[in-house]
C-alpha cells in the first residue's frame, strides 16, 4: 500500500508497510496513479501529452528499482511476525488521579470540571502507595515505568504527590526499576517550592495553556469567572526557564471557537515557549465548541500554514517544537508498538482517588469500564483483553488506512465516545491526524532539502 500527497510544492510518497518515505517529481507522482495496475505502454499513452516517452520510461524503471528493494509496494507481514505474536503486554504506566477536584473551570473539560462526574476527592497516601505497588508488581520484566500525576488539578494534592514520589524512589530500587514521574498542571498553584520539587523529580511536565489571552480565558477561567491567562503566564514561563527549556510541553486545546489555532501555537512560541502541543477538542457535535466535519478544510489550512511558519522560524534560528510535527523517520518506535497503539487498558491504566482502575483517564467515571482496584491487585480479564486486542489489524477502518503505523489506531476513548465501540475510530479525529502526519512529513522533506 502506498499513500501520496502534494503539499507545499512537494510530492511525497509513503510506502506504508516498509515505512519508507520518498520525495518524487511530478512525473513519478502521476505515474503512481496507474502503476502497477497498468503496463508501461499503457502508462506512456496516458501521460504522453505532458511528458516525453523517454522520461516516463526512465521514471517507471526507478519505481521498479525501489519496488525490488522493498521500498515501494512492500507487503504487510507483521501480523505473523514473531515479535508481534509473542508480545506480552504488562502494566508499565499509571495515570494517577491524585485530585478529583480542580481550582479552575474549563468549558470543554472531559473530567466534568475536575470531579469526573463523581464526588470531589483527593487521593490519600495509602492509595498512592498501593498504586505504586500495583505498578511494580504487574510490570513484569519492564525496567522503565511511568507515573503521571493527573487530575483535576494534581497540585491541589501536592503533599501526597511528594510522598508518592519519595515512596516510588525507595521502591524502584528494591524492584530494580526506573520510574519516570511526570505531571500535568494548569499552573495556578505553581510556586517556587513546587517548581523546585517538580524540576528535581519529574521527567516531563505538561503545562496547560490554550494560546492567546482571549482564547485561553474564554475557555479556562477561575471559579469566579476570571480568565487564567494573566495569572499563569509568568509561572509557566518561569517553569520553562528553570527547566532550561527541556522536558516540558505547554499544551493547549483548540475548539470550534478558535479554528485559527495556528495563531495560538505561534503566540505561545512568541511568548518564548519551545515545546508546544495543541490538540483538537474532543466533543460531540451538540456542543457549541465542537469541531465539526465542515470545519475540517479550515483546520487543514491552519495546519499547513503552521508547518510553513514552523520551518521559517527554524531556518531563522528561532524555531520551536510542535508535538505533532515531530517525526523521527529513522529512529522512531518499532512497528510492534505502532501496531499495538496507545496501550490504554493493557500497558497504561488510570487510578482514581478511591483506588479504582480504569483503562485510561478518559474512561474514568464510566463504571462499565472499571477494571479493578489497587486493593485487590486483580484486573477484569475480559476488559483487559479487549483493550490488549484493540490493535490496528483488529480495527476494520485502520486495516486499510495508510496512516495506521503513524497514529496506531487512534484513541480508544474517542472511538468509544463517538461510536460506542473502541474498535471504530472517531472519523473527524482520523482526518485531522492524517493531515498532521502529512504536514510532519512535508516538514521532513523540506528539511532534507536544506541538508
Amino acid at each position, binding site marked *: 500500500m502506498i499513500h501520496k500527497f502534494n503539499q507545499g510544492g512537494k510530492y511525497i510518497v509513503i510506502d506504508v508497510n*516498509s*515505512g519508507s518515505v520518498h520525495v518524487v517529481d511530478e512525473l513519478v507522482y502521476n505515474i503512481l496513479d496507474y502503476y502497477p495496475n497498468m503496463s508501461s505502454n499503457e502508462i506512456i499513452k496516458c501521460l504522453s501529452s505532458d511528458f516525453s516517452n523517454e522520461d516516463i520510461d526512465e521514471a517507471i524503471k526507478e519505481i521498479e528499482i525501489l519496488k525490488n528493494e522493498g521500498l515501494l509496494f512492500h507487503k504487510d507481514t507483521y501480523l505473523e511476525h514473531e515479535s508481534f505474536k509473542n508480545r506480552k503486554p504488562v502494566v508499565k504506566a499509571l495515570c494517577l488521579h491524585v485530585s478529583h477536584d480542580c481550582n479552575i473551570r474549563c468549558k470543554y473539560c472531559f473530567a466534568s470540571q475536575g470531579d469526573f462526574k463523581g464526588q470531589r476527592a483527593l487521593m490519600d497516601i495509602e492509595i498512592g502507595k498501593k498504586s505504586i505497588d500495583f505498578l511494580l508488581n504487574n510490570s513484569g520484566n519492564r525496567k522503565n515505568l511511568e507515573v503521571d500525576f493527573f487530575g483535576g488539578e494534581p497540585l491541589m494534592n501536592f503533599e501526597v504527590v511528594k510522598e508518592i514520589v519519595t515512596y516510588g524512589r525507595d521502591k524502584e530500587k528494591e524492584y530494580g526499576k526506573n520510574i519516570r514521574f511526570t505531571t500535568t498542571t494548569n499552573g495556578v498553584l505553581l510556586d517556587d517550592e513546587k517548581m523546585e520539587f517538580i524540576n528535581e523529580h519529574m521527567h516531563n511536565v505538561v503545562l496547560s495553556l490554550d494560546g492567546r489571552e482571549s482564547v485561553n480565558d474564554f475557555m479556562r477561567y477561575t471559579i469566579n469567572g476570571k480568565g487564567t491567562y494573566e495569572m499563569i503566564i509568568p509561572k509557566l514561563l518561569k517553569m520553562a526557564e528553570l527547566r532550561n527549556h527541556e522536558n516540558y510541553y505547554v499544551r493547549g486545546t483548540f475548539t470550534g471557537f478558535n479554528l485559527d489555532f495556528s495563531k495560538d501555537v505561534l503566540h505561545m512560541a512568541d511568548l518564548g515557549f519551545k515545546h508546544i502541543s495543541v490538540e483538537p477538542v474532543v466533543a460531540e457535535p451538540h456542543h457549541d465548541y465542537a469541531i465539526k466535519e465542515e470545519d475540517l478544510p479550515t483546520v487543514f489550512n491552519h495546519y499547513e500554514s503552521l508547518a510553513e511558519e514552523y520551518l521559517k522560524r527554524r531556518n531563522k534560528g528561532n524555531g520551536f517544537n510542535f508535538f505533532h510535527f515531530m517525526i*523521527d523517520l529513522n529512529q522512531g518506535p518499532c512497528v510492534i508498538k505502532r501496531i499495538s*497503539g496507545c496501550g490504554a487498558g493493557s500497558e497504561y491504566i488510570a487510578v482514581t482517588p478511591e483506588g479504582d482502575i480504569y483503562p485510561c483517564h478518559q474512561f474514568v467515571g464510566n463504571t462499565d469500564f472499571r477494571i479493578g482496584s489497587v486493593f485487590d491487585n486483580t484486573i477484569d480479564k475480559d476488559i483487559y483483553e479487549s483493550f490488549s486486542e484493540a490493535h490496528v489489524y483488529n480495527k476494520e477502518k485502520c486495516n486499510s488506512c495508510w496512516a495506521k503505523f503513524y497514529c496506531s489506531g487512534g484513541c480508544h476513548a474517542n472511538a468509544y465516545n463517538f461510536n460506542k465501540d473502541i474498535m471504530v475510530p472517531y472519523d473527524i479525529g482520523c482526518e485531522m491526524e492524517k493531515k498532521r502526519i502529512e504536514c510532519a512529513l512535508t516538514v521532513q522533506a523540506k528539511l532534507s532539502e536544506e541538508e
Partner: protein
Amino acid sequence: MKHIKTLNGATLVKSAIKGGCGECQTSCQSACKTSCTVANQECENK
C-alpha cells in the same frame, strides 16, 4: 536517481527484528493525553 529522492529506507521492516521490548514511553503520557501520535515517540532500544 533522477526522479525520486528517498528520505528513509525500510525502517519498519528493520524495527520488527528486535521490536516489541516495550521499554519506550507510553504515547498518551507524553504530551497529548487525548489523541495518539505514536510515530513521534522515541525508541529506548536504538
